[in-house]
């Protein structure tokens, strides 16, 4: 039976048999008189169970509900058709099993929607039904004599005995029905929204049972109420259809999962995610718990500790794990476990969201670390530049000064005497020493301008402007900033002014430094030829990197013939006033 094709054939055969039985029943009753609505409804009720059961069976092969519905429908049709056949054995067996379907029906109602009974009470109720329709029915058959006399089991015909057994049967099955109705309604009341909706067929079944009980009550006072019987049959036709309705709803829920995946892709807040999951599963009571490794427990979206529900509380937990460690949990109505596929797809969507969050957090942490290390690298570079400048000053620069002075002392000592060649040589040596010193100073200034640390950005830029060959106007305040900010600003301006003199063919340039709330705005423009390409030349590129390390930006506008404008923004720490 495990081969899918075989099962499909079995189902087709069952549908054929049900069709044949129904047709036989219609033909059989037609021979006995005019076709009654009740008969048509009876056939339709049987067909409804078999057809809907087969459909459910095909859609949900693991769910026992489908085969169970087919069984109920088949028993229903079989019992009724067999009693139409004027063969004593067939008729007797037909009568015996006429009501066997009610036990299947009770099982169906109590085991909905998984097809499995949940409690001992459920089994007891089904047992009551079975007791009535199998042994008690057999006992009744021992006394009952039908009009056609075909009951082969009637070994002690007695109308009164049959009546007594029948009354006992009605009493016991009424008791069982009441229990069943009580259990179903209680279950319905205790369920959450989606499960309540899912229980519609069961409620319809309970209503049918109540109607049946009412009909029996009428019967005990010898009243027959035809429309009531029709109503019972109509509800029995409706039950399998209601089951299909529930099935279709679950299919719609799969559409909701697609929506959920889209929602998750937009990285919703934890609250939105919970809502989306609840919608997709149709369970408003759904909760999401996140594993907090540091606390070694689950927390809710608000960060509060959260206990996972135990088994048997009506709630179930679907765990999301990563490398064997819990990552998150979805707490939902246990009934949803009957839809393992649905829960699995919702869990997958949830996994996406959790993975998203985790990756985002990881990337953020890495980014933070990279930014911090980049800033540290720039800062370390600046410190190193300052150290190199100081070393040059204390070492080579001092020695060259000394050498130069010593040569001058020697030259002065010679006066107009001595060898003229030696005098000339000393003069040249002094010049060489001066030139070397000048070059060394240029180098030191390029490495780190002392004036920047000593006097601040304003004076350093003024000094820069003073030594630029074109006319540079400077608009800057006396505020001091962190060494990193001052360094970045200074080197941007220095590089820009170097470009002004080297390439721009400008007659004048302008530097503006404006301290805004939380950042320094720098603007350097000139009236030169423009056409500067920030991608060519590593100078500006390097500056962009240096600024980026401070979360700053730089932009260059340089249309050919339209001058060059460089703007930079550097976030600042609170500026401090320069000491007076």
């Amino acid at each position, binding site marked *: 039976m495990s081969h899918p094709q075989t099962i499909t054939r079995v189902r087709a055969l069952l549908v054929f048999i049900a069709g044949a039985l129904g047709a036989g029943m219609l033909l059989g009753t037609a021979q006995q008189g005019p076709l009654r609505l009740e008969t048509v409804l009876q056939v339709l009720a049987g067909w409804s169970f078999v057809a809907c059961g087969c459909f459910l069976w095909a859609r949900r092969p693991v769910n026992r509900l489908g085969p169970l519905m087919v069984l109920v429908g088949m028993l229903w049709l079989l019992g009724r058709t067999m009693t139409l056949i004027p063969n004593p054995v067939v008729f007797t067996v037909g009568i015996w099993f006429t009501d066997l379907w009610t036990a299947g029906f009770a099982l169906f109602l109590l085991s909905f929607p998984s097809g499995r009974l949940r409690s001992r009470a459920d089994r007891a109720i089904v047992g009551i039904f079975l007791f009535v329709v199998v042994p008690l029915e057999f006992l009744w058959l021992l006394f009952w004599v039908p009009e056609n006399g075909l009951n082969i089991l009637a070994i002690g015909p007695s109308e009164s005995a049959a009546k007594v057994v029948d009354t006992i049967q009605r009493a016991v099955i009424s008791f069982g029905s009441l229990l069943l109705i009580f259990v179903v309604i209680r279950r319905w009341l205790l369920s959450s929204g989606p499960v309540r909706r899912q229980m519609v067929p069961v409620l319809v079944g309970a209503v049918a049972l109540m109607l049946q009980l009412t009909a029996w009550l009428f019967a005990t006072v010898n009243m027959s109420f035809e429309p009531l019987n029709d109503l019972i049959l109509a509800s029995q036709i409706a039950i399998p259809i209601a089951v299909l309705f529930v099935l279709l709803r679950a299919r719609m829920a799969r559409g909701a999962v697609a929506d959920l995946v889209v929602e998750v892709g937009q990285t919703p807040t934890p609250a939105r995610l919970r809502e989306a999951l609840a919608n997709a599963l149709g369970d408003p009571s759904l909760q999401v718990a996140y594993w907090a490794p540091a606390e070694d427990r689950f927390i809710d979206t608000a960060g509060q500790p959260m206990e996972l529900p135990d088994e048997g509380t009506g709630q179930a937990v679907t765990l999301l794990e990563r490398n064997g460690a819990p990552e998150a949990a979805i707490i939902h109505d246990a009934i949803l476990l009957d839809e393992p596929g649905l829960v699995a797809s919702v869990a997958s969507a949830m996994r996406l969201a959790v993975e998203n969050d985790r990756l985002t957090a990881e990337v953020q942490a890495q980014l933070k670390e990279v930014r911090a290390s980049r800033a540290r690298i720039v800062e370390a570079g600046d410190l190193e530049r300052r150290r190199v400048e100081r070393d040059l*000053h204390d070492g080579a*620069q*001092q020695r*060259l*000064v*000394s050498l*130069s*002075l*010593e040569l*001058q*002392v020697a030259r*002065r*000592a010679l006066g107009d005497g001595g060898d003229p060649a030696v005098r000339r040589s000393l003069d040249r040596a002094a010049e060489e*020493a*001066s030139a070397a*010193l*000048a070059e060394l*100073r240029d180098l*030191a*200034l390029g490495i780190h*301008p*002392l*004036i920047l640390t*000593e*006097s601040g950005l304003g*004076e*350093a830029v*003024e*000094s820069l402007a*003073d*030594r630029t060959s074109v006319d540079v106007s400077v608009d800057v305040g006396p505020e001091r900033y962190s060494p990193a900010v001052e360094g970045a600003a200074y080197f941007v301006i220095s590089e820009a002014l170097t470009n002004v003199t080297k390439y721009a063919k400008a007659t004048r340039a302008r530097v503006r430094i404006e301290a805004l709330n939380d950042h320094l705005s720098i603007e350097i423009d000139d009236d030169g030829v423009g056409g500067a390409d920030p991608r060519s030349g590593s100078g500006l590129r390097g500056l962009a990197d240096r600024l980026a390390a401070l979360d700053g930006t730089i932009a260059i506008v340089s249309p050919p013939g339209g001058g060059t404008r460089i703007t930079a923004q550097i976030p600042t720490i609170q500026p401090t006033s320069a000491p007076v």
Partner: protein
Amino acid sequence: MRRMSTILIIDDDPRFRTQARDLLEADGFIVIGEAVDGASGLDAVEALRPDFVLLDVGLPDVEGFEVARSLAIDGPPPLVVLTSSRDARAYGRRLSSGEALGFIPKERISGAAIRALVDEG
């Protein structure tokens, strides 16, 4: 003929003090004293009352600018010539603050250079 000018050299580098003394004396200055830092420099000015002070910007205890300011307050001031092994670009406008006569990088120190500053000032 002019009276020979007196000058005090304030610098922590003994080699420089010797070289400067040699050069300035060769150029007709009387080096009446030497000091190694700002504090002793101020004391020496008080005691010696030189016409000029050759003052290193980077002294071990206090900046040369600071010494120049103190001298300007405690008048009558000597003419202060700032000097450094760095050049003027390292100090910018601080050099032209008014308390000093001017700035000469160390390797340019000479009687002629100092007199040129006097003529300019």
